């Protein structure tokens, strides 16, 4: 099968799974949101080579923007999503100039700093954001004026998955465009890229802004589908989790974030149900094992097994 076939299988599965597991819609909704968030970080890390420990900043801006819009009258989800995403893009654009400077280590610190500052701002202005108690009284109108957000998460799940698919297709277009290729050139060697005429700074600002808009959309989806926003959306652990997701799934090929998000959430959900007290230990163990064995070797192993199965299958039933 070619990679094009794989993509079809992946997305057919993504649409089929919610239909097959109607009791897991809320979890699937969370996976889709985390996947979109990871996709956003992959654009930065995997394509432009910008490391970030503060990506939750844009997730949080999107979540608060969507929550506040809904609370103050704009309860239509899609326009709320677009506006929240735009708000995150503005913050992303402004902070991108800080990220242009310095090496990876400085970038880690700067991105983290921006997220921490926003967290403190949200905490301080508790008359607007609700502070540590969370933003109360967010009620969303029905999606497209037809589907209300139900207790089972049907609307939420369909909404998040559709948004993920649309934004994924846009991202796929972006990374395959000349713009995307120039990003890879910058990631490979910034000096040489500049020498062949790639305006490195402008490109990085653009991709940072796009990534912020994506993260903002993910945050907005969370706020709209849970109809609640708390300070936690800006918390450091969100930035760290999304980095973990990319470590699990691999960066630089767009699907890494999606696969990583599914593995991370399923593992968390399964382990937490099995041992509510000690599940974090097992997550830690799995991460250490993945790093030690190496994801490449794991996926190569999986490919070999798949290939063998496929050969056997083909041998039995020549088709």
């Amino acid at each position, binding site marked *: 099968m070619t990679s094009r076939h794989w993509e079809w*299988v992946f997305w057919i*599965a993504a649409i*089929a*799974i919610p239909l*097959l*597991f109607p*009791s897991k819609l*809320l*979890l699937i909704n*969370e996976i889709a949101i985390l996947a979109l968030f990871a996709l956003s970080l992959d654009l930065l890390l995997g394509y432009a080579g910008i490391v970030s420990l503060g990506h939750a900043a844009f997730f949080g801006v999107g979540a608060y923007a969507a929550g506040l819009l809904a609370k103050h009258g704009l309860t239509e989800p899609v326009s709320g999503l677009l506006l929240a995403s735009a708000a995150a893009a503005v913050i992303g654009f402004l902070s991108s100039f800080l990220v242009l400077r310095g090496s990876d280590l400085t970038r880690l610190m700067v991105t983290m700093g921006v997220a921490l500052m926003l967290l403190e701002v949200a*905490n301080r202005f*508790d008359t607007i954001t609700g*502070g*540590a*108690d*969370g933003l*109360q009284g967010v009620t969303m109108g029905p999606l497209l004026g037809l589907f209300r957000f139900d*207790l*089972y*998460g049907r609307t939420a799940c369909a909404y998040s998955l559709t948004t993920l698919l649309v934004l994924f297709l846009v991202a796929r277009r972006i990374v395959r465009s000349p713009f995307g290729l120039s990003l890879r050139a910058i990631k490979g060697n910034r000096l040489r890229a500049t020498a062949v005429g790639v305006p490195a700074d402008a490109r990085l600002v653009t991709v940072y802004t796009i990534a912020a808009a994506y993260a903002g959309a993910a945050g907005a989806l*969370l706020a709209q589908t*849970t*109809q*609640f926003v*708390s*300070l*936690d*959306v800006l*918390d450091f652990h969100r930035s760290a989790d999304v980095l973990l997701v990319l470590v699990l799934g691999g960066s630089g090929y767009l699907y890494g974030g999606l696969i990583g998000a599914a593995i991370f959430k399923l593992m968390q959900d399964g382990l*937490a*149900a099995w041992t*509510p*007290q000690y*599940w*974090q230990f097992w997550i830690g163990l799995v991460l250490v094992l993945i790093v030690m064995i190496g994801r490449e070797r794991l996926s190569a192993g999986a490919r070999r097994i798949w290939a063998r199965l*496929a050969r056997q*299958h083909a041998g039995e*039933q020549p*088709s």
Partner: protein
Amino acid sequence: MRRRAVLGAIGSVALALASGGAFAQDTVKVGLILPMTGPFASTGRQIEAAVKLYMAQHGTTVAGKKIELIVKDDTGVADVTKRLAQELVVNDKVAFLAGFGLTPLALATAPIATEAKVPQIIMAAGTSIITERSPFIVRTSFTLPQNTLPIADWAAKNGLKKVVTLVTDFGPGLDAEKTFEELFTKAGGTVPEKLRVPLRNPDFAPFLQRAADAKPDALFVFVPSGAGSAVMKQFAERGLDKAGIKLIGTGDVTDDDILNDMGDVALGAITSHHYSTAHNSPENKAFVEAFRKAAGGMRPNFMAVGGWDGMHLIYQALTKTAGKTDGEALVAAMKGMAWTSPRGPISIDPATREIVQNVYVRKVERVDGQLFNVEFATFEAVKDPAKAAK
């Protein structure tokens, strides 16, 4: 061909999961959502142990129904709490949602309780407004205004003139700050500084320094369960104890779970609270002994007693409805219910679904070589003053 095989495999897994989800009609499920990991894990540990102890002592059959407990860890994050509550209602068809370690977690779940008509039993969170957020919320823990009233009264009557407040910056902390300031200034005292510490990763040192600079007679403290030892340690490090500043507060700061490890700096701290491990009653002696045996020597604290009474409320409500799990009937059954808890006599206010209980003023003393909150005055049947004022 291959694709069909894959889809077939997915389908059979789905069927297996779906059939596993079937359940018998004569079980009543209780969804217990608690922070079992993260900074507030001690709250989850205490409540889970108390709930399991209650079930071990009182059996798992009530009014002919079998009680099944489902424990979930929300890590203290509100959107996770909400999602877990939603899943418990939709997939597990729980008849009760219980637990809720912190105010934001309880508030996030309130709309679920209302929409699904499932009673939400608050076993820990203490902000006054929580019970007003859904007609299905019933509380067995406490409210901060309720616990603050006696210490404000005690402070005013015992010669304290100038008190600085230090609270954690979220719902319950603001409740405590507001109640204390109102009552204490009405009684003639002054509150020169009101300090608020963030909920996550608090560092008390700079705040304690500011408190020391104001040279008050006493420092009033509220922090969530589990954070008290850090306050005590830095209180001593900054020399506030040597400067003659008294430590007063709600009993959360001298939490029984960790009090004994705080050391001598805690001695003499005056707090008011609804529960102390050292509460002198036969019910409490039996409770403490059984809890210690069941939980590996751990002392039960006010979280444990909230969980214990929450479970009692669930059992009694089911008995009263003869096993019917209609949410409105269950809440109606809970209203006005009264019983003797390990903490003393308590009841559920039929008007507000809020707990009415004795609040005790206590002093940290060394008893048989261990630190305890020893009660010396009682305010009987205190209703939540924040609601009484409305």
